[in-house]
């Protein structure tokens, strides 16, 4: 299947973002944008500001200055994370942030909460729409479970699942929201080769079949170079490069700052 990267306004665009905590500057004058259906990778050493960038996009942090645009429209500066999520932006976390007391199925169903109606009395009585809604969304959740090949752990509390499985469930929870833009924070971290291959396959399928735009932070250079359309490189809170994988590989600043040095990632 041939995938076409969109050319209109970017799904999300950050313009001249600054972010500081107390005296510490986490991001300085960062601009980055991602086009529909594009696969953007963000790399850089630890502390370069990659996760901060994600947190700005998902509304967990508020930028000290700068503008975030969603499909060309400027987002209100203090948009809450749940409002961002309802724009169609879903994410995973660097250290898995599943709901450990809930089953894999419930975690994934929770991912669909933003698409569901709420009515206390109807849900309490399980009549009419509330009942139909649960069943409809359950069907979608089961599709995701099948897609991620995790039906056997459906009922298991995720706290009891092995690490690789948890990563998958977390991806499932993000996919459940049917996002336009998916932020993946180190989706391959701590996985063995086989698990990484599976994860790559899932990510590419999502992108190609559903046309979901991707931004991923990843340390595994092989994976990054293989699957991304474009790579943005960060160092000390600044973007030092933003180009196609092959160009980045040859970029002298990047080599000096990151690739060339003794980073073991």
């Amino acid at each position: 299947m041939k995938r076409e990267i969109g050319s209109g306004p970017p799904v999300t665009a950050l313009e001249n973002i600054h972010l500081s905590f107390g005296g510490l500057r986490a991001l300085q004058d960062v601009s980055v944008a991602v086009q529909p259906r594009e696969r953007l990778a963000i790399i850089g050493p630890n502390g370069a500001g990659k996760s901060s960038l994600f947190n700005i996009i998902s509304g967990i942090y508020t930028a000290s200055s700068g503008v975030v645009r969603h499909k060309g429209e400027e987002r209100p500066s203090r948009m809450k994370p749940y409002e961002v999520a309802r724009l169609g932006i879903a994410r995973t976390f660097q250290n898995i942030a599943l709901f450990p007391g809930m089953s894999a199925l419930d975690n994934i169903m929770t991912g669909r909460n933003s698409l569901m109606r709420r009515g206390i009395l109807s849900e309490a009585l399980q009549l009419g729409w509330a009942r139909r809604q649960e069943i409809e969304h359950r069907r979608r959740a089961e599709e995701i479970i099948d897609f991620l090949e995790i039906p056997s752990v459906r009922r298991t509390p995720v706290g009891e699942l092995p690490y690789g499985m948890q990563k998958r469930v977390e991806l499932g929870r993000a996919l459940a929201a049917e996002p336009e833009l998916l932020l993946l924070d180190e989706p391959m971290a701590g996985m063995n080769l086989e698990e990484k291959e599976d994860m790559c396959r899932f990510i590419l399928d999502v992108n190609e079949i559903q046309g979901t735009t991707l931004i991923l932070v990843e340390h595994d250079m092989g994976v990054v170079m293989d699957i991304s359309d474009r790579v943005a490189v960060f160092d000390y809170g600044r973007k030092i490069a933003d180009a196609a994988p092959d160009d980045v590989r040859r970029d002298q600043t990047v080599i000096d700052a990151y690739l060339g040095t003794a980073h073991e990632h």
Partner: protein
Amino acid sequence: MFYRETGQYKTTYAADRAIFPIRQDRIGIAILLVVAFVVIPLFANEYWLRSVLTPVLVFSLAAIGLNILTGYTGQLSLGTAAFMAVGAFAAYNLEVRVPEVPFLVSFVVAGLAAAGVGILFGLPSLRIKGFYLAVATLAAQFFIEWLFTHVGWFTNYSTSGVITAPPMTLLGYSFESAESRYLLTLCIVAGMAIMAKNMVRSELGRAWMAVRDMDVAAEAIGINLMATKLTAFAVSSFYCGVAGALWAYVYLGTVEPQAFDVLRSFEILFMVIIGGLGSILGSFLGAAFIVLLPIFIANASGLFGSALSAETIAHLEFVIFGGLIILFLVVEPLGLARLWQIVKEKLRLWPFPY
């Protein structure tokens, strides 16, 4: 052997979503309901109905309320009794001022009033977390107790400072006998328990649990923290409010504000923890445990009779009660509901140990 789900396949999501998907559970629940609705009223004596089963049911309802807030949403509350008080006083005031209102309606109003107050004292939860949140609910606890003691309007300026529930009549039937009161309570509590079970296994419950387990992640996947927490406070307080109204109307008849003091709040918290946080069944088990245990200990110590003075027996009851709670937590920290699950697992394999 008897408790085995093999061979039971669910072919639709609707069947899988049934409240008790396993056949043995359904049979068990059916038996339990028959016992609760038919056998007990027929055979239990007044002592059991009036002074044991009715309060256990009322406490169960309050415990469900607290469990929604603390067990499912992870917001610690030490003000449960205050929300019960709001319910009791709201129902009383409505009945006294508008006597035409059927008492069942005033129970609903009791719940709604408590829910409103619950939302008010839930507001700090948007900023305060964990044990620190206890301060907001303790503020509610002491403030509401003070309010009902000091503002005469709430007690209809009764000189004794207490409220007295008007008689309960519905379509000409007067709920006087122990059986009718027990059945009334049972219907309300069972109905609300099923509603609670429905809530916690649908969209609402998943939002609550997500907030409990990891609020940052919950918000990032589109859950409105404020709305979800306040909904939990409202629903929880609604349950407590109805429980308070039942306490005043069905169980005691006359209550003073001090009947809903902080020790009552602690008592309900104990029930929830002993029964199992995040379990509707556990709320019932916990309430039964906390109400019945002292009675059983007192009775059992009666068997050893006159060797000990009444005073010593009374104090030993505390030693045994405390010791049992500790033993319990050491052996099964997840509560009675978890213990029940383990029993079920065992039954599933029995008689083969592996």
